């Protein structure tokens, strides 16, 4: 507790709307990559909307669905899908990279006995599981 009724006038610096692009005159790569990661969710969300719409069209019979599939082969839609895929990959990559943070230099949530599992193993494990899961889903989709 600080007894001080005598606060003086202070100056609060405004935060630029472009703080993530130019941070006090410098390009801050981490702020930019962070905002990019936030932005990925927009594309993922758009893709999900599109996907739900596609499922909805399935209930309208094969013709509607085929027409939809054909309209998707237009250039802009392909571009959209590529961007959405890249963003999804980037988001997953950074999210799984976060798992290393559970394993501090000394402290770790995942332990074997008293030994903390090295962070790199956690990350590799996560990426491995991700790749396996992707392959399984791809296999199911492509073969069924």
């Amino acid at each position, binding site marked *: *507790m*600080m*007894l*001080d009724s*005598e*606060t*003086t006038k202070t100056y609060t610096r405004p935060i630029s709307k472009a703080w993530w692009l130019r941070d006090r005159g410098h390009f801050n790569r981490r702020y930019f990559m962070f905002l990019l990661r936030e932005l990925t969710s927009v594309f993922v969300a758009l893709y999900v909307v599109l996907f739900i719409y596609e499922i909805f069209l399935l209930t309208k019979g094969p013709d509607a669905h085929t027409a939809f599939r054909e309209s998707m082969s237009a250039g802009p839609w392909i571009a959209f899908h590529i961007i959405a895929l890249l963003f999804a990959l980037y988001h997953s990559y950074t999210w799984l990279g976060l798992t290393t943070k559970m394993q501090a230099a000394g402290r770790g949530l995942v332990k074997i006995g008293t030994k903390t599992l090295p962070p790199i193993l956690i990350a590799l494990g996560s990426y491995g599981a991700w790749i396996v899961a992707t392959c399984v889903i791809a296999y199911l989709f492509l073969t069924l």
Partner: protein
Amino acid sequence: MNIPKHDVLLIGGGGAGLRAAIAASETYRGADIGVVSKVYPMRSHTVSAEGGTAAVMREDDNLDLHAYDTIKGSDFLGDQDVVEAFVKEAIDEVIQLEHWGCPWSRDEDGRVSVRAFGGMSVKRTLYAADKTGFHMLHALFQTSLKYDAITRYDEWFVTSLLVEDGRVCGVTALNIRSGNIHAIGAKSVIICTGGAGKIFPFTTNAAIKNGDGMALAYRIGCPLKDLEFVQYHPTGLPGTGILMTEASRGEGGHLVNSKGERYLSEYVPGKMELGPRDILSRSFIHEQHQGNVFEGPDGSYVHLDLRHLGEKVIDEKLPFVRELTRNYVGIDPVHEPIPVRPVVHYCMGGVHTDINGATPISGLYAAGEAACVSLNGANRLGSNSLTECLVFGARAGQVAAQHAADTDFADSASMAKMAQDEQKRIETQFFGNNGKERVANIRDDLRKTMEEGAGIFRTEDALKATCDTIRTLKERYENIGIDDHSRVFNTDLVNALELGYMLDVAEGLAHSALLRRESRGSHARSDYEERDDENFLKHSLAYQTDGDPRIEYLPVTLTRWEPEERTY
């Protein structure tokens, strides 16, 4: 007129101050405690202490051994009743701090670890890697946050002690943020402002250590005791004076001269690198005279060699040493020796107190480096000072709270008036005149003369010259001018006020040193090379007068240990 009031008011929020504040608030229910500090408490200089804190913790140790080591280290100037109380209470205090969360380094069985330290005959120094002071201070500060009885005045700077009818009844303090000066009433005031290393040019001490509290007490007639004893730490980085902890020698580091010899075999063959600091620092000067030192841009130095300890030990026990040397001199101690030289580190002297931290002035107490309870005598052993903050901080807190319980506050209106007078005095002195003297110039000249006259080796002539110079500097100080005449966060003004404190402490120090015509502990006189128990087995007390300080003497309390020759 309403002014803030507290039963007990701390000046200083470092190790001793926070320990005292907690002790005072636990002494009786309802005790109201204030802590005034010119910096946020966790910035206090306790934070820089590295090596450890001493207490008897193991089966191979005992209280008498710790007491004897401390007394011998003090060159028999420590009061033995104080030492005995200290070693006894040290144990509970370090355990108390453990209970408050201090992250002490541990043995495999879970007990707190102990390491070797200079002048200690067995391992008894508890540590938290080599950031012991940092961890102790943060544990104390964080613990203090849970006490609602403690009110903090962060970044308030005390400008004077208020005295009424011969007793201290509060302080005037500058709220650095607003620039206003306020009276704060108190039944008891405890000075815990640390030492005055910054009156020397080359020191491990932080910028804030200007002897503020010592000067505050001195100005109201309280004597400063044993001021002439200033400890040089043997291992500081040349140039910056950054401390290379004694723990680096406690863990097995070597001091090596330019010939590649562990030269301490000449001086302290029985202890080598674990000899006491005063002797090690003097050994460096002897080596310098013999031309056995390295020369660099920041003067001569020797090597502190840790390479044989290996990376693992260095990272585990001395990580801060590695961090500091890498950052500040670009040296990795795993691969290269560290350049070091003696550097001003600690004031054994300070505000004269009894065994409980009470000064001769009613209502005024002191603890920690600012005080001289006469634990350290003529030379402090490494790792006794952090413990001293705890033991005597706690004692002073309790006694001050008991005193407060039986005392009334002074009249608020008269205290408020004193604060108004103080504001006028300061405005007239620093804003009103058109003085031409810069703070930094007087400060630099003071530091220079202190090193010349009151350094590791002292002589009558050099000390006289220093006393004369200080007198001139005090005259120049009357003609000081500061650039900044604004109110909000005026650090120019704070620096000017601090300089006034430094001059007072320096004056007391130089005169005490001049009159002690013997060599004892850290006070080495080239013209009086022997210890003289017949004439000087006594404490000096410096009193402020209108002219030069008056020096009186006080006998040393001896209980069970007769003074003997001090060899290691």
